[in-house]
């Protein structure tokens, strides 16, 4: 089906379309000879180019972290331009070529990045149509496969109109260009196969870990045995006996070995005899929560305040309930440890890495090395799945320091222990909650305090190499917007939610997947369930009772997940069952950040009361993220959210002694394995005429609480400390 568009419509659609690219355009060849490619968010040329063969190149500042997002971004552009998917190439995360669309985080790649691309494509299409109308002498045009046709006979292709020239069209977010009507989408909304999977399953894909440049050496960083330890002595004698080792590089307490082969670099690093000072900066893990509670607070953020909580809580007859929840320190756990390559040439640094934010990394590397940012180019190469700010930026800094010292390009591949030990962590989260109810069980007040680390002024995490080398880097790391979802979606008459921002946290913090939203929602949705149980109410109905009645999409999500899971209306816990293994179900809900994607979840669990072992057997998810771009890609993301977060809930916890992280492999930091993975049933609610929202994180927010509520339903025991290891479950059952 083609779309009828009149030239008048096309011209009326945008106030910005006043420049004719055919006249104003400059040759793309000129760019290759030195003229900088436009990068501003206000230029179509920043996002799109069409060459003489009709190939469309998309320049995306948002990158594919293994989610398949670049297939979805191609779908958006292909549909808006009416070109086939296979005619689109995509360049991602290159500071020389792609606009700075912000970090690839917070589930906004489609919502923000994709919509910027859609605007650029819509503006390009309108300009092409206007040009074609002039050429073909008619307003009645149709477009198919990048060819504009007038009637059946006269036609002109995009390639003929624009091939290798600039569009020279401005974009103004305040005056958005008219986009296609959702009813005309042919690719958006369809389960389009991912472009990367054939290469990934046959060994043809280039991951960051596969990337090589000529003359490249391999580097290995020698990590201190304790955070904050200083080098007292280095003995290189044993290293010199290893053939292939080119150099030992030292810069302050940053120490590395560079060799011609990766294995020789590893052997060299192991052979190096280093005496380090003693350093014990970490708290006693057994008393972690006392430590968190006692940490100096630098400020208090009130994230919501309705009515008068203090008055309601102390009102005569008010029934008070209090609980404390905690969520352990977690790692990202990428299957491929971080990797980067750096090359210095003519005073300029080129850095290849799997950074989520190459434009920010560029500034960080420039600051570290005392270079002007225009002397640094950062290029994204996809690595193993990255669910937040893991070690990639740090590997990039390692490689840059080593490459600078040896003058050859250097590749740094982190070890498993490097990744588990030195990637920045999801910080420990502690929440005190209290609420009051009246005689009928109605909630009269909700009051919560979250203990979470402060956020540094920059949106970056300090680089390990810079810290060790005594070079400049962010002093206070940014942990992500972890205050989010400390506020709640329920309309109680009195609500106050507060985040106490702490001066320090035991390990360098960063945003893991669903940062803050997962930990905070965990506490909120479990405590909400406690109130439902205290009121003798069905927990799903209790949620519906307190949702904003005007929020129809939220109500629909909850009602549909109830139907999907064949939810049996009754209060929790279930009547006591006999036998060791008991079953239960739990519900949870989020409206992400209280403004976007809605998700409802029902978990079914089995608890073995003799061993304390929890089996999550099934998850039902109903998901509304507005307009769906790729339904199968979306399901893949939701499945990932569920499984990764079941793993976090049941077994994950970073372990440390007073000096350093001690859970340095998959045995000491286990993750969910195949036999433990639940069955997942997903219902997508597609709303083609609504804005598309994110899906990379929202479902994860409600997995821990759904499990916790199901365990309570099965056992009558409330678990308030993640992870739910068998030992903790047994202890909680004995205490009840």
């Amino acid at each position, binding site marked *: 089906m083609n779309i009828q568009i009149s030239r008048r419509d096309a011209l009326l659609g945008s106030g910005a379309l006043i420049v004719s690219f055919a006249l104003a355009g400059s040759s793309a060849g000129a760019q290759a000879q030195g003229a900088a490619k436009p990068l501003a968010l206000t230029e179509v040329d920043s996002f799109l180019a069409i060459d003489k063969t009709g190939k469309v190149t998309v320049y995306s500042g948002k990158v594919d972290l*293994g989610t398949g997002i670049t297939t979805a971004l191609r779908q958006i552009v292909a549909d808006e331009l009416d070109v086939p998917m296979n005619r689109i190439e995509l360049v991602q995360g290159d500071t020389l070529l792609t606009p700075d669309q912000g970090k690839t985080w917070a589930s906004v790649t489609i919502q923000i990045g994709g919509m910027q691309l859609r605007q650029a494509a819509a503006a390009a299409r309108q300009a092409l149509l206007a040009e074609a109308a002039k050429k073909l002498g008619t307003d009645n045009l149709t477009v198919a496969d990048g060819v504009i046709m007038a009637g059946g006979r006269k036609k002109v292709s995009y390639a003929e109109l624009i091939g290798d020239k600039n569009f020279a069209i401005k974009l103004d977010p305040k005056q958005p260009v008219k986009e296609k009507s959702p009813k005309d989408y042919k690719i958006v909304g369809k389960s389009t*196969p991912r472009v*990367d999977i*054939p*290469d990934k*399953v046959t060994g*043809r894909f280039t991951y960051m870990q596969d990337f090589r440049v000529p003359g490249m050496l391999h580097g290995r960083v020698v990590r201190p045995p304790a955070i904050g330890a200083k080098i007292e002595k280095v003995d290189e004698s044993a290293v010199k006996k290893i053939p292939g080792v080119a150099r030992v590089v030292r810069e302050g307490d940053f120490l590395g070995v560079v060799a011609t082969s990766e294995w020789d670099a590893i052997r060299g690093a192991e052979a190096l005899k280093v005496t380090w000072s003693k350093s014990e900066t970490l708290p006693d893990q057994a008393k972690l929560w006392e430590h968190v509670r006692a940490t100096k607070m630098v400020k208090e953020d009130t994230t919501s305040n309705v009515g008068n909580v203090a008055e309601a809580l102390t009102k005569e007859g008010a029934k008070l309930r209090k609980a404390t929840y905690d969520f352990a320190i977690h790692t990202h*756990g990428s*299957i491929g440890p971080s990797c980067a390559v750096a090359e210095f040439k003519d005073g300029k640094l080129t850095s290849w890495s799997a950074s989520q934010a190459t434009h920010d990394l560029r500034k960080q590397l420039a600051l570290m090395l005392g270079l002007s940012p225009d002397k640094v180019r950062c290029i994204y190469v996809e690595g193993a799945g990255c669910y937040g700010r893991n070690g990639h930026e740090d590997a990039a800094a390692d490689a840059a320091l080593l490459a600078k010292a040896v003058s050859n390009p250097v590749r740094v591949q982190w070890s498993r222990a490097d990744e588990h030990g030195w990637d920045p962590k999801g910080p420990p989260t502690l929440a005190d909650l209290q609420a009051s109810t009246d005689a009928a069980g109605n909630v009269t007040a909700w009051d919560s305090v979250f203990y979470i680390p402060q956020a540094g002024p920059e949106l970056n995490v300090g680089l390990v190499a810079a810290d060790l080398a005594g070079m400049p880097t962010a002093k206070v790391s940014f942990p992500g917007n972890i205050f989010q979802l400390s506020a709640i979606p329920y309309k109680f008459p009195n609500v106050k939610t507060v985040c106490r921002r702490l001066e320090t946290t035991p390990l360098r913090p960063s945003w893991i997947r669903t940062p803050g939203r997962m930990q905070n929602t965990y506490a909120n949705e479990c405590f909400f369930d406690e109130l439902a149980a205290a009121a003798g109410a069905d927990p799903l109905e209790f949620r519906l009772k307190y949702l904003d009645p005007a929020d129809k999409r939220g109500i629909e999500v909850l009602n549909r997940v109830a139907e999907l899971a064949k939810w049996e209306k009754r209060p929790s816990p279930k009547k006591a069952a006999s036998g060791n293994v008991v079953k239960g179900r739990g519900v949870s809900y989020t409206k992400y950040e209280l403004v976007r994607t809605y998700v409802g979840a029902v978990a079914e669990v089995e608890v073995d009361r003799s061993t304390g072992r929890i089996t999550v057997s099934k998850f039902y998810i109903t998901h509304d993220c507005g307009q769906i771009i790729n339904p199968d890609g979306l399901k893949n993301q939701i499945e990932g959210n569920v499984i990764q977060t079941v793993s976090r809930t049941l077994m994950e916890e970073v372990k440390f002694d007073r000096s350093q992280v001690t859970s340095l492999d998959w045995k000491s930091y286990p*993750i969910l394995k195949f036999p433990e993975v639940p069955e997942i049933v997903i219902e997508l609610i597609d709303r083609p005429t609504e804005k598309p929202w994110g899906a990379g994180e929202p479902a994860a927010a409600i997995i821990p609480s759904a499990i916790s509520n199901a365990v309570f339903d099965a056992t009558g025991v409330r678990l308030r400390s993640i992870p739910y290891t068998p030992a903790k479950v047994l202890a909680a059952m004995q205490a009840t």
Partner: protein
Amino acid sequence: MAIRSLTVNGKRVPVTYNDPQTPLLYVLRNDLGLRGPRFGCGLGQCGACTVHIDGVAVRSCITPLSTVDVNKKIVTLEGLGTPEKPHRVQKAFIDEQAAQCGYCINGMIMESAAFLAKNKKPTEAAIKDALANNLCRCGTHARIVRAVKRASA
């Protein structure tokens, strides 16, 4: 520097090395330029590095070069099939869209191809057990199991 011959994906190839204890993974990736086998842990815990040696799924990250010689047939993901002509397990993974980042997928395919060669019609539980020591962090497990089942049909 010493030289050793290996048989990789049906071809006899010479490799040079400084240390006979060099894990096979590094030889395959860095000397032979193969990308299928991946470095994940170096400890034999995650399975990302899996290759076939004489039809058996082996963790190449903990297999010293000294234990492998020209008489052993090494097959990597590249040796199974290509995007144009994928092996039935690879095709099933494409059909089920069974990857997110795909970093672990080499291990999933190599492990299940070796498993299916000996187990023609496995149950879902048997597939999960066969893959119990292959780790995936993205949470693609359900699709991977479906893909292995599809390949067995």
